[in-house]
């Protein structure tokens, strides 16, 4: 079986196959043979060349979180959402930029209206989470195309807040 993941936006492919009691993993020009034991649905024990690693692992949608030897990595499966986005961008060369909340929170204020011209780094909205107010700033000079949220809305980090069309 072969899988593809994004590690910091870089695509990495990894294949695995069972060989007796062990598993062979290949990624790029690297190969490793591991004795793998399932500890729980979220934990594996790997022994690779005598070295023991306890892996904590969990996923949410297309994000996989892996913890190992005191380090946590985030991998992405090249999933449906990014693809849709990509197609959107292909569809219109000077596409819309979607501004999202940087974290789940509550919209305290929307500072702009549709059709407003905005400058780069202008504050577009304020989202509060965990007793901290966070200003959402414009990534570019442009014009507000659409506003999807209003004050009081709860938003998660995947929710589009505002669409901006770049200034041409």
């Amino acid at each position: 079986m072969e899988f593809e993941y994004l590690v910091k936006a870089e695509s990495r492919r990894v294949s695995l196959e069972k060989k007796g009691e062990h598993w062979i993993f290949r990624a790029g020009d690297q190969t490793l043979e591991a004795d793998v034991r399932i500890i729980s649905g979220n934990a594996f024990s790997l022994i690779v060349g005598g070295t023991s690693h306890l892996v904590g692992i969990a996923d949410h949608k297309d994000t996989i979180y892996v913890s190992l030897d005191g380090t946590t990595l985030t991998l992405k499966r090249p999933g449906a959402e990014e693809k849709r986005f990509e197609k959107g961008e292909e569809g219109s060369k000077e596409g819309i930029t979607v501004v999202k909340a940087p974290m789940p929170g509550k919209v305290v204020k929307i500072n702009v209206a549709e059709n407003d011209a905005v400058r780069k780094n202008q504050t577009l909205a304020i989202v509060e989470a965990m007793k901290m107010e966070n200003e959402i700033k414009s990534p570019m000079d442009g014009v507000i195309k659409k506003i999807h949220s209003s004050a009081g809305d709860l938003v998660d980090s995947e929710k589009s807040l505002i669409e901006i069309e770049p200034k041409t």
Partner: protein
Amino acid sequence: MFKKIVIANRGEIACRIIRACREMGIASVAVYSEADRAGLHVQMADEAVGIGPPPAVESYLHMDRIIEAVRETGAEAVHPGYGFLAENPEFARRLEKEKIVFIGPNSRALELVGDKVRARQTMEKAGIPIIPGMKRVADDFAEYAAEAKAIGYPVMIKASAGGGGKGMRIVCSEEDLRPALEAGRREAKSAFGDESVYLEKFIENPRHVEFQVLADNDGRIVHLFERECSIQRRHQKIIEETPSPALTPELRQRMGEAAKRVLEVSGYNNAGTVEFLLDREKRFFFLEVNARLQVEHPVTELTTGIDLVHRQIRIAAGEKLDLKQEELSQRGHAIECRIYAEDPANGFLPSAGKILFLQEPKGPGVRYDGGIFSGWDVPIYYDPILAKLIVWAETREAACRRMRSALDDTVILGIKTTIPFLKDIISHPRFREGATTTGFIKDHFGDWKEKEASGETEILSLASAAFFDSRKTSEAGVLSVRAKEQYSPWRMLGKWRIGEKSDLSGE
């Protein structure tokens, strides 16, 4: 002793107080907002009462609802934890009127120490060293300007009702004074509903050293030594320890006596903390009283052997303090790391969401006070503290090594946390030397980035992900669409995610 106590708080501190109740044979009542029905404190308590919608003002800050929960369950006392209503004199006063015991100081003491300007006046009169500066709120700009000149720049603007760094501004010259005063007043107004500010001499790169004090209802007072809390980010403590690497026995004794005197002149009872700044010449200045159980209380417990929550409850129940100052001592070294739901690589943006996997640290000398579990959805409404990791060891060096090991043992997947940041602080050579001042984070971690994972870790992670996905695939009994699609010509395009680079917190 009480038979039943309401814990007017949530998260790790509520859990810690519930444990104390259980050990003391006291029934515990958790209160919870709608966001916290499944919270750990609700799971652990003997009884649980819903007190309203998620926003704190409609639940944990809602005095009527808390008092109603006390009445409804027949409880005799309220432990407020920290934050929320813990230092609110009005709440204490209302409970006093209702003949419900408030496990904390009396309302007069709360009022006095809550007013920073009045507290400064009181302490100065009692001979406690205070930071040079104003002892009253000025009437107009001219008065502020004159005071600033008299104090000498740089000066610090502070809110009279202050706390948590809100309203604070450093001003280096007269021309910056007016706009800074205006901004400070606005911030103070919005944070405390009170725009009063005053000026103090700005002390450069001090240490933050505080003393834990216990006072019973009859005025017996002991201190339980210091905690050094210099490792701060925007006036928020993130690592605390005791003993302080900076104190000599003689200085410790003097500061401890000063701390006791502070409580004495405040007419204070129950547990409290007296905060001092210690400058480079090892002069100490009274800063403020934290009139509650502190987040960092465990380091004191581990080194003195005194359980502060047990003591709070016993004092509130009217017991005499049977501790004698000369019998108290510090043993070994303790350090606490606060684990927050924040993204340290990204301006410490809050990071609410679901904890997909939790591995809690344990082992000899490791204490973990947590308020979360695997599957818990960290709400957006409250403080981002998830857990506290506290270690004890014979020496400071051993405690640092134990902390590092315990942090490596702590795994929280699904949300961002401050764990990688804490690891780097605890491993920093200057931290290891004990060179801890309030400027430490700014000086050494201003542009912190998480270390890149080693190539080995990365390949092992990829292998683990593949193994994980292969199990999902085979569990579903079919090859996943994903596995088939793997060769589709696909590439990552740049995408704007706002807030990732800019500092949104307004510093």
